[in-house]
């Protein structure tokens, strides 16, 4: 019983910290809030291995969330906010890497592999057809 009680208190405390974090931020419009949420999901926490800004409890992630909030309320565009982050924390913060010489393989690789697959598939089909035709003759 005592254990149950302390467990309930713990859960309440854990959840309240999230509720608190949300009430601290107010947005002038619904759109701004949606923009904030999508930006915080798009950007990676620079201190964490693989967490977006929305998820992370790291101090720096909190600061960056506040920064995003402030910039949105100042009327900055999403692109300006992303550029601001990249200028300070590098391409690392982008979950969707930009297209550049270094990331060309990342973007083009799957398409190239798919094309190679198709060509190989077609080649095998053609060869089998020829072989079968040869047998019939």
């Amino acid at each position: 019983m005592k254990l149950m009680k302390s467990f309930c208190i713990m859960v309440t405390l854990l959840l309240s910290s999230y509720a608190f974090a949300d009430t601290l931020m107010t947005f002038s419009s619904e759109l701004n809030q949606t923009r904030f949420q999508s930006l915080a999901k798009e950007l990676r926490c620079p201190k964490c291995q693989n967490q977006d800004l929305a998820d992370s409890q790291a101090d720096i992630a909190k600061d960056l969330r506040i920064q995003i909030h402030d910039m949105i309320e100042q009327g900055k565009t999403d692109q300006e906010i992303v550029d601001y982050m990249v200028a300070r924390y590098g391409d690392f913060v982008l979950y969707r890497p930009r297209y550049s010489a270094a990331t060309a393989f990342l973007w083009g690789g799957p398409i190239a592999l798919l094309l190679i697959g198709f060509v190989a598939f077609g080649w095998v089909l053609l060869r089998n057809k020829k072989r079968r035709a040869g047998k019939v003759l």
Partner: protein
Amino acid sequence: MRKLLWFLPFFVFLGMGVVLYKQLGTNPEYMPSALIGKPVPDFTLVSLQTNRVEDQSSLPKQAYLINFWATWCPTCEMEHAYLRELAQQGVPIVGIDYKDDSNKAQQWLATKGNPYQLVVTDELGKFGLDMGVTGAPETFVVNSKGIIVYRHQGDLNSTVWQEMKGYLK
């Protein structure tokens, strides 16, 4: 030639093996600074000791270090003695008291000694954001032209200094 084709998966395996093997032992948390090759961003921050407002013009004219520290940061305590050693060797260090309580910071310097030529307080961490800092301690090397050339995350010690000192010119 056709036989060679059968070995293609093996070659792919070999290639990936080499790439992955090279990554072994590297620090996955290492993140290159986006500020390398750029000048120190503008700032107006209050000096910890004199309450004067400091900006770009207060920075040393020769090559120097920028060290982000705070009293809440245990690693900063670890590196403090080494910073003092460097200061004694004549390395100019600018301290940024990052997201800290100024009173505690003043006390810290009074009891542990002050290795810094200049200490400014970045209470809100805004300058830290501009420098792409993710925590404390972090140390940047700025060359004599005012360009950031090196960044180290974590404590500064003699091993790190071996690599870092080459950039200080």
